């Protein structure tokens, strides 16, 4: 069945609310979406040295993300080939072997089988070379963002990302050497809501004035001038921003900044002492990238969604956020801060402070997003009596005029998701 009503003639777009509550829909999307798409695993900077590894769940699967002795980055299912126990139990570390505590099978950093206690008891057709840790069928990176794909026939990552690479490049251009790093410290929290509500929320600028009025007050209290929205059709934010479909279900907002950016737009919140430092960061951007691109990097925000579940918010600071369903009505969110490797101590501290003004479970905005999504999920209990969510905002305008506060980008997501759900697994 189709979960959307997409009616361009009457400019109506409706979404069936079963998508947020149905266990059957979740089971189907695990096969048709999560097992078909490229899914974010981690960033290469998390593995600074040979032997470094981190363990995490990706699409419900425990994996090891590791750098081997030669410096190559790999991804393995964290499951012993013998009887199935998890072989790497620490969150992160540096190791020479992954060792199963059950019967003592061990594996190298490249996933290969290293040792089986009492190996001579295995006879006949047993071939130890077949017993390395299993790998996802595909594992590729773009600018050190590493993704896995469970579909061996999927297109290459860069082709999958398509035009989204332009927006990743804009984020990475903050670094003089083009090298960004994940900053120490992970925010992990659950939200009692369907995972797809976080996709919508991450790019939906329509909600900002209402959901985040206390954040806007805080900005004003901190000396940041927040202009009233101009009297123009549909605009609810102080500056104009657009919603852009990037193909393959990816999309982004592209906004003229009004909220300050550690790279490189000073606001009073950062303190007078930061003015010169931010001027210097801006000057470096201009010299390296030219005035036009420097303006793009420094003075525009973007909230980018890589279909289905990677968000890169380049706003008050840069966050990488990913989230996975834990049942139809609950998701687990992981968020990191990202910054240029060259950043000095005070710029790094300012970036982290700017992050916390808005993002995260103790930020001045994210907790209210979480509340809004949980209220949506609570309301969804009426889905059989009130079946459709309304997403027609801005639909009468051409694509080039779709604002970040319209719902074009949300429709982009849902059309792509709906199409994948119509296909055979």
């Amino acid at each position: 069945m189709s979960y959307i009503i997409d009616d361009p003639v009457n400019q109506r777009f409706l979404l069936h609310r079963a998508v947020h509550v149905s266990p059957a829909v979740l089971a189907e999307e695990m096969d048709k979406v999560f097992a078909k798409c490229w899914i974010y695993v981690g960033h290469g900077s998390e593995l600074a040295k040979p032997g470094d590894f981190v363990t995490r769940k990706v699409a419900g699967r425990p994996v090891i993300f590791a750098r081997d002795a030669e410096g190559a980055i790999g991804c393995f299912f964290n499951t012993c080939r013998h009887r199935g126990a998890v072989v790497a139990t620490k969150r992160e570390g540096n190791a020479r072997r992954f060792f199963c505590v059950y019967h003592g099978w061990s594996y190298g950093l490249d996933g290969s089988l290293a040792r089986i206690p009492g190996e001579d008891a295995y006879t006949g057709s047993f071939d130890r070379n077949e017993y390395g840790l299993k790998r996802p069928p595909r594992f590729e990176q773009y600018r050190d963002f590493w993704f896995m794909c469970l579909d061996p026939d999927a297109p290459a990552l860069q082709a999958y990302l398509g035009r989204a690479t332009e927006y990743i490049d804009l984020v990475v251009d903050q670094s003089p050497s083009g090298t960004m790093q994940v900053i120490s410290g992970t925010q992990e929290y659950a939200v009692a809501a369907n995972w797809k509500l976080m996709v919508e929320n991450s790019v939906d600028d329509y909600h900002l004035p209402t959901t985040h009025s206390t954040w806007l007050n805080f900005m004003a209290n901190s000396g940041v001038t927040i202009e009233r929205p101009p009297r123009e059709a549909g605009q609810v934010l102080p500056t104009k921003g657009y919603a852009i479909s990037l193909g393959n279900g990816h999309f982004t907002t592209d906004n003229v900044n009004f909220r300050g950016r550690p790279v490189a737009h000073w606001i009073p919140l950062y303190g007078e002492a930061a003015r010169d430092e931010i001027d210097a960061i801006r000057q470096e951007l201009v010299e390296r990238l030219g005035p036009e691109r420097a303006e793009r990097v420094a003075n525009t925000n973007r909230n980018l969604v890589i279909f289905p579940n990677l968000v890169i918010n380049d706003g008050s600071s840069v966050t990488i956020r990913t989230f996975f369903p834990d049942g139809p009505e609950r998701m687990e969110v992981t968020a990191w801060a990202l910054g240029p490797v060259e950043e000095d101590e005070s710029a790094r501290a300012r970036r982290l402070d700017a992050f916390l003004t808005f993002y995260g479970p103790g930020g001045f905005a994210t907790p209210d997003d979480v509340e809004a999504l949980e209220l949506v999920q609570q309301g969804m209990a009426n889905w059989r009596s009130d079946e459709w969510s309304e997403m027609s905002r801005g639909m009468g305008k051409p694509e080039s005029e779709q604002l970040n506060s319209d719902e074009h980008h949300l429709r982009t997501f849902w059309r792509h998701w709906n199409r994948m759900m119509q296909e055979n697994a």
Partner: protein
Amino acid sequence: MQQSAAGRLTRAEAEDFLYFEAALLDEWRLKEWLELLTPDATYLIPPNDKPDGDPRNTLFIIADDAERIRQRVIRVLDPNCHAEAPRSRLRRSISNVRVLGQEGDLATVAANFICHRYRRHERIREYVGGLTYQLRITAGGLKIRQRRIVIDAHELGSLGSVSFIL
């Protein structure tokens, strides 16, 4: 606040202070709570995976200076702070209070805490961990110079947001 004769902070004094602070926070008497802070106070909750981290180079859950604490109180008391409207019912227990040391008028105090948080239609949340305070001994009583709160859970997970003053 009564001071002991030697000017050394006693455990009993520290306990009285922490219990009083807990009552103010549980009862949402946050403007009175602000009076307990020094002008240069900080409020820190490190990320679950880096409990010993430094907020200048580690992404914290909360890393407020004194002005940010005041702004946080304005925010959470605003009826448009949706995460706390209606407000959480909070009940915290403080135990295992120890005075770890004192230099001049600045004492370091550690304790365990359990904070239960209840909201209608939501799961019950139990924040469990350790707190470490720097308390300044002043003529006007004890003042909080730094409150650092470590949540023992390996991840926030079902604890969700820290949208109240923990």
